[in-house]
């Protein structure tokens, strides 16, 4: 057996793989990242599809990234620059709109303009939601305890969790459960009466998940999208300079600065094992690279069923992973625009284009958009979360021109009676028609349109069935159960083989924690002599 060239090999150069590699390299491990494509970033990439126009092909905004990662990996030194969104904009479907900004009191007045009854509810709503976020946050920054283990070491973590949860106020705990199990519609109806106001707040409750705002589970999706705390503001969102690809380039520079090596166009076909131990990886071209630690940043299907032979894994784990729901329902339609769209009620300002443009006027609108997906078809009038990033970051497009990223739902991965290659442009037309409804004349501005279907997401990023969270974001696939019961702590049944993708806690979204928490697990195991890493002097074989 040849000597390992590396201490650790990370399979997949998405944001979690890069984060993981940066931490491992920072700890002194000789670390190699293997990326299948010609660029790192996974689903967080920026591509210049038209000269001067930078498209965030997939992921397009930043919020959940844990602040610890920014500091611990010294990302500012490598160009980290989140441009905070100054506003979010919600057409209410009747020509009017909600325009929310950084000034709380002015937001209250904006709500009151539509519904005096909802003005004070707005305060209560945000306070209650913030309390829930505070209660749940520590769970994001720690590996899920193994409640199934009898190991005293694991009991320490279980005790921590029990202690933490028992410290949460009764009322807040009830709100946590309402959000974890209930629908966004039910939650919002406890506060608001105005359909537009409810629609605005429901906007993040269905992202990336096969639920409507009236489905149980949408509360959890809503909550997750409020967990970010950029610059100390809960639920705040930013465009990273240069798009989310700009962010993953920062991560790559940080990883390299710590000594990690990144190899592009190096698809991994298998994790090599000897006995029950990982010893390296095999590349598509037949190259074998050896390392006592292999970390998969891919989703659970690929981690457990493709990179290794599932016949060597416990049947219960394989069953769980096979049962895991992916079924992506999101697509992107990205535009290069000749100028700014015009919202008729706000003809002379750009202030409403500073952040998300939320095209889903009411809960009912979004729920109806969901209906089609239940039966294997895409929405006739889809829900759109749009962003004209070039307004905040002019370097994204030539002067006076713009790029507009549209996250469009619903677009089920599997279409009944057709396929995405046939439906691609018709689906793009549906999205564009919705934009035309709200921004008359929109079509005349379009210089270029890129339709990214769930099948495209799967093919380009490797995310199974195009699920943007690397596994649906619903209670049975969360926390202790992400990605599978008993395997939520970043290890696998194969010694030296780890998982760090968004399919592990607390992915998805661009959060970085799976990569960070997995690195902690790896480094603990190295320190305990459970796996070898030559650089640290704990040889294993």
């Amino acid at each position, binding site marked *: 057996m040849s000597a390992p060239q590396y201490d650790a090999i990370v399979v997949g150069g998405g944001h979690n793989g890069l984060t993981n590699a940066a931490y491992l390299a920072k700890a002194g491990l000789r670390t190699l990242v293997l990326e299948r494509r010609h660029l790192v970033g996974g689903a967080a990439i920026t591509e210049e599809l038209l000269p001067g126009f930078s498209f965030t092909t997939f992921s397009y905004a930043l919020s959940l990234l844990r*602040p610890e990662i920014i500091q611990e990996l010294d990302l500012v030194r490598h160009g980290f*620059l989140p441009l905070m969104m*100054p506003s979010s904009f919600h057409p209410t479907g009747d020509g009017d709109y909600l325009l929310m900004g950084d000034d709380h009191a*002015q937001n209250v007045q904006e709500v009151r303009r539509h519904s005096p009854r909802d003005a004070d509810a707005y305060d209560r709503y945000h306070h209650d939601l913030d309390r829930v976020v505070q209660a749940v946050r520590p769970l994001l920054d720690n590996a899920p305890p193994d409640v199934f283990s009898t190991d005293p070491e694991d009991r320490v973590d279980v005790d921590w969790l029990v202690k933490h949860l028992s410290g949460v106020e009764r009322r807040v705990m009830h709100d946590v459960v309402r959000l974890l199990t209930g629908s966004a519609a039910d939650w919002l109806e406890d506060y608001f009466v105005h359909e537009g106001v409810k629609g605005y707040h429901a906007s993040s409750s269905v992202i990336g998940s096969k639920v409507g705002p009236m489905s149980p589970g949408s509360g959890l999706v809503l909550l997750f999208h409020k967990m970010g705390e950029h*610059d100390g503001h809960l639920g705040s969102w930013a465009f990273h300079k240069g798009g989310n690809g700009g962010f993953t380039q920062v991560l790559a520079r940080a990883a390299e600065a710590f000594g990690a090596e990144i190899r592009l166009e190096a698809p991994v076909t298998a994790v090599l094992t000897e006995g029950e131990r990982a010893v390296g990886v095999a590349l598509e071209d037949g190259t074998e690279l050896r390392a006592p630690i292999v970390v998969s940043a891919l989703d659970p299907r690929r981690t457990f069923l493709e990179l290794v032979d599932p016949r060597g894994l416990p049947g219960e784990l394989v069953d769980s992973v096979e049962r895991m729901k992916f079924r992506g329902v999101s697509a992107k339609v990205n535009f290069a625009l000749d100028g700014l769209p015009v919202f008729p009620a706000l003809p002379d300002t750009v202030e409403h284009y*500073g952040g998300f443009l939320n095209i889903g006027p009411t809960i009912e609108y979004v729920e109806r958009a969901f209906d089609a997906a239940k039966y294997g078809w895409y929405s006739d009038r889809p829900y759109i979360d749009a962003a004209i990033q070039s*307004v905040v970051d002019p370097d994204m497009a030539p002067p006076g021109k713009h790029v507009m990223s549209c996250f469009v739902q619903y677009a089920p991965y599997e279409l009944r009676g057709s396929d995405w290659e046939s439906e691609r442009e018709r689906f793009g037309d549906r999205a564009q028609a919705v934009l035309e409804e709200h921004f008359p004349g929109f079509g005349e501005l379009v210089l270029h349109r890129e339709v990214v279907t769930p099948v495209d997401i799967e093919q380009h990023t490797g995310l199974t069935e195009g699920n943007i969270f690397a596994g649906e974001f619903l209670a049975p696939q969360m926390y202790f159960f992400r990605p599978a019961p008993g395997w939520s702590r970043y290890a696998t049944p194969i010694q030296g083989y780890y998982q760090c993708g968004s399919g592990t806690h607390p992915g998805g979204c661009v959060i970085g924690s799976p990569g960070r928490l997995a690195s902690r697990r790896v480094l603990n195991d190295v320190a305990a002599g459970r796996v070898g890493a030559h650089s640290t002097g704990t040889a294993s074989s």
Partner: protein
Amino acid sequence: MIRTTPFHPRLSELNSQGLYTHWQGFLSPLRYTTAPKHEYFAVRNSVGVFDTSPLFKYRISGPDAEQLLAGLLVRDIRSCRPGRALYTLWCDDRGFVMEDGVVFRHSANDFLLTAARPNLGWLDSHRGRLRVELEDVSDDYGIVAIQGPRSRTVLSALSPETDGLGYFQHTQAKVGSTAVTLSRTGYTGDLGYELTVPADEAVAVLDAVLEAGRDHGIRPFGEEALMMLRIEAGLPLIDVDWTNSRTAWTDAQRVTPTELGMGWMLRGIDDDTRPFLGRQAIRRELAEGSSRWATVGIVVDWQHWDRLHRDAGLLPSKSEHPPPYEQMLYDAEGAPAGFVTSFLYSPVLQRHVGLARVTPALAETGTELRMEVVVNHRNTTVDVRTAPLPFFNPARKTAKP
């Protein structure tokens, strides 16, 4: 009666907030939109416009103008060629800092001095028998700062002279048909320019700038954004980071150039051909090493900050608004070590940073100190380290064109 600047008619139209402060008797917007941070990012990422007209402006001319300024200003005006500008302090005869300002040299005998406070009487009192004309031209001109990485692109479309202009250089240029002074100066620590414009043509010039910047995301920014920018740039502000010696009550309130972190201005102090106000005292201070303070940056230990707040049941505050009071610093033993004069959470640095004055022995970069902070109505301290200034200093700020 509060006054308005020459740019006010247009800028007030762009202000959706109606939120002004008073700057030397002029209305000055705190912010134009609900999001001052967005205005700040315009400067750090594209281009922003700031109305700095309330500065006092003095024309100093005549055969002995150079001699007058050489004897008053800390930096040596004799080394400043026409077409260049100097940022400088001036002191009292005890070597304490009075004010700061920028002096533009238009020709051998013609200067323009900007100042934060009125200074004509003071200038005049030092004129003696020198052949100098002093004129308060504050109301004759408006000054608009165009700052940020895209400022050069925007201005060069209006005035081709922009392209050749080096850091702290200035030139006569035209914007449309209006003659202006175009200078590569500013108070943001970024690439930036200022236009000094005849008051009655100010709006036309501003309109041209806004039009040229429209496709580059240009937007006006207010004082809230300016505070963030200038603290990141390590630029002190009178009456915030120091007190004018002339109006201070005690020497404890006063600072010397060295104590203010401006020791770099004293390079020519041993040149006996240029006695200037305060020189003897400053030389004594330097010879005796009697400076009481050093000005440094401080950076807060983010983990400690977060823990202090989270353990108290609070979300760690990360406010870009500087508190309007000093925060005391202590050394590792808990003894007083200095104080923080300007403090905020910096979005580009993702850290809490501050401008501080510490005892000189503690000035070395990386010195661990503790800063007082109030959490849940309880006084406690957070760990900080001293850091070099400026915090934010992009190459583009001074890069040759």
